[in-house]
């Protein structure tokens, strides 16, 4: 087969270390995106004109820029213009947090806006305060609508961390390339098997998340 090298202990260990970096970047970015995203979403629903314009502009900029461009801007741009030398990993976390917070903010906004006006009315006539209405009635409903697309966002972030290798982060794809290089002469078919394995590794992380998102969504529409 020509793929035995992938089953050697050292290779597996190196891949797992790379995968650890991938997951570390993903998890830290997601964890940071949550508070910023929720804050952004709540601010989005405020009727302040100026705030709306600023948030919209930010969201649209992040949305139309390829993540790779953002990585370059933060990694190379911040060193030149701000004199800040971020490591590849820190730059990656900054970019994925900026992106994650923007996307999550929009999801939070949509979830809050999807709660019918009548839910507020019903709470009002029962005598609930604004705070009680938000915490007891609106938030629980918004959360169940928010969860499926948020889980999808996590999958997108995990997949996109593969781009970090292009700014020098040694994550799982970069480790894969190193393995291919190392076995170049002994296993000339290495690239085929290694990239297939990498795809499989990502699939094993992302596919269950996608299924979870679908399941959560199905539960909502029932």
């Amino acid at each position: 087969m020509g793929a035995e090298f992938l089953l050697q202990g050292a290779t597996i260990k190196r891949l797992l270390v790379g995968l650890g970096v991938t997951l570390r970047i993903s998890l830290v970015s997601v964890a940071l995106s949550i508070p910023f995203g929720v804050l952004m979403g709540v601010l989005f629903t405020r009727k302040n004109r100026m705030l709306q314009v600023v948030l919209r502009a930010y969201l649209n900029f992040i949305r139309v820029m390829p993540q790779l461009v953002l990585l370059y801007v933060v990694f190379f741009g911040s060193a030149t213009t701000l004199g800040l030398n971020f490591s590849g990993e820190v730059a990656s976390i900054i970019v994925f947090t900026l992106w994650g917070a923007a996307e999550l903010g929009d999801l939070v906004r949509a979830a809050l806006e999807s709660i019918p006006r009548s839910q507020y009315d019903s709470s009002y006539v029962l005598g609930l305060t604004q705070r009680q209405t938000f915490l007891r009635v609106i938030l629980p409903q918004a959360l169940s609508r928010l969860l499926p697309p948020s889980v999808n966002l996590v999958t997108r972030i995990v997949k996109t961390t593969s781009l970090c290798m292009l700014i020098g982060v040694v994550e799982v794809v970069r480790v894969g390339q190193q393995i291919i290089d190392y076995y170049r002469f002994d296993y000339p078919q290495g690239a085929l098997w290694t990239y297939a394995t990498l795809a499989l590794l990502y699939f094993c992380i992302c596919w269950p998340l996608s299924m979870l998102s679908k399941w959560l969504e199905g539960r909502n529409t029932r």
Partner: protein
Amino acid sequence: MDWGLVHAYTPLFVTALRVTLMVSAGGVAAALVVGLLVAIVRLWHVPVLDQLSIAYVEVARNTPSLVQLFFLYFGLPKLGILLSQETCAIVCLAFLGGGYMAEAFRAALVAVPPIQHESAQVLGLTRRQAMRHVVLPQAMAQATPALVANVVFLVKESSVVSGIALADLMYVAKDIIGQSYDTVEALFLLVVAYAIILLPISAVGSAIERRFAYGR
């Protein structure tokens, strides 16, 4: 920022912009075809193809585009399949985008009420005629916002083709930064170039979405 340098580098970026546009356009067109076919196969539950389609969509959506690209460009030659950089880039976007487009089409097709199929059937249309004249036109309207969002997504994803040394916008910027350290100018041109391509598409998308929301 040195505007003289910006001016000097502009022609390079214009050439690269063409490459990005060419790859994206090819990829989007192919992804639309793949997506529509897959969606119809799934809607009609064509035996075998249905299961294959499900597997394909899941793989396309749950693996990174960069890995898909590397597999096509570095992996497939080991099986004797040699693709040029351009072909590889377009095939990659078609593979990736096909999965997303398929879901967009499918969601829209499923949303067409069954009564529409039944009405067409009662009028004596064949399944294919009903699809072409009744169901698909309605589904297209419904799918448009998602399709436009996928186009934006694919143009953005096309930036990964710089990873196989195809001279797109990303590659040119990387080249300038690596060789002459004119980082700010290169990044500025890079951001402007993507904004020029994607802001109009994104604006059209929002406009369609708004109109669609009012129509309901």
